[in-house]
C-alpha cells in the first residue's frame, strides 16, 4: 500500500490510513483506554512499518470506523463529491490498484465519452499467510494468540 501511495501521488490520488481500535489486543498492545494509548500504538505502527501515508486517528468511540462498517482492515476508494468508487472487506493491494486505475480512467473519460455510472459487485478471494498472521499475534502478546486460536 505504501508503494502504491507513492506511485499514484503524482496522479492526484491521496492515500491515508485511518487508525481504528486494536483488532487483536494483547499484553504488549492492549485495547485503547484513552487517545494517548491510541496515539502510542499508532506511532508504533508507523515506526515498525515505516508508514509514509498520513495516519488519521478515529475518535476513541470509533465513530468513523463504525459508520463505515466496523471491519478490521477494509479499504475504500472515494472520489470527488464523496462518491464511493470501491469498497472491500479486506485490503488487497492488487485489487485496489486495479480499481484505482479503473476509476482514474473513468473519471478522465466520463465527460468526453458521456459515461454513466452503475453499481456492480463481485466475490474476491485472498490468501492469508498463517505463519505471518500468527507471528503478528505473538508480537501483540500471548492473550492475542489465545483469543484467536483458543487455549491449546
Amino acid at each position, binding site marked *: 500500500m505504501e508503494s*502504491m501511495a507513492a506511485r499514484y501521488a503524482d496522479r492526484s490520488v491521496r492515500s491515508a490510513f485511518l487508525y481504528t481500535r486494536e483488532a487483536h489486543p494483547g499484553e504488549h498492545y492492549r485495547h485503547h483506554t484513552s487517545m494517548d494509548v491510541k496515539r502510542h500504538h499508532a506511532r508504533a505502527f508507523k515506526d515498525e512499518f515505516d508508514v509514509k501515508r498520513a495516519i488519521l486517528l478515529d475518535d476513541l468511540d470509533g465513530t468513523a470506523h463504525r459508520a463505515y462498517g466496523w471491519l478490521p482492515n477494509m479499504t475504500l476508494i472515494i472520489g470527488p463529491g464523496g462518491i*464511493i468508487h470501491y469498497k472491500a472487506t479486506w485490503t488487497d493491494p492488487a485489487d485496489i490498484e486495479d480499481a484505482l486505475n479503473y476509476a482514474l480512467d473513468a473519471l478522465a473519460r466520463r465527460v468526453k465519452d458521456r459515461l454513466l455510472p452503475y453499481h456492480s459487485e463481485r466475490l474476491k478471494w485472498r490468501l492469508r499467510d498463517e505463519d505471518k498472521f500468527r507471528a503478528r499475534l505473538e508480537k501483540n502478546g500471548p492473550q492475542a494468540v489465545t483469543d484467536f486460536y483458543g487455549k491449546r
Partner: protein
Amino acid sequence: MGHDYNYAVFDMKAEMGKFAEFQDHPLHAGRQAPDYPLEELDTANTVHMKDLWASGLVVIEFGSFT
C-alpha cells in the same frame, strides 16, 4: 455484557458477525461517503474526511497495529 468497541478480548463470534453485516451495510459503491473529523497523528491537526476527496480520489485503508 455487550462487546465494547475497544474490546480487551477478541471475540471471534462477535467479530465474524460484523463481516456478515458488512454485506448489508448501506454504504455501497455509488453512494455518498459520510464525513467525520479525524486527528492527524503527525501534527495533531483535525482533518475532515471530506477534505481527503475534495480534489480527487483518495484510498483510505482502515486498520490498526494489531
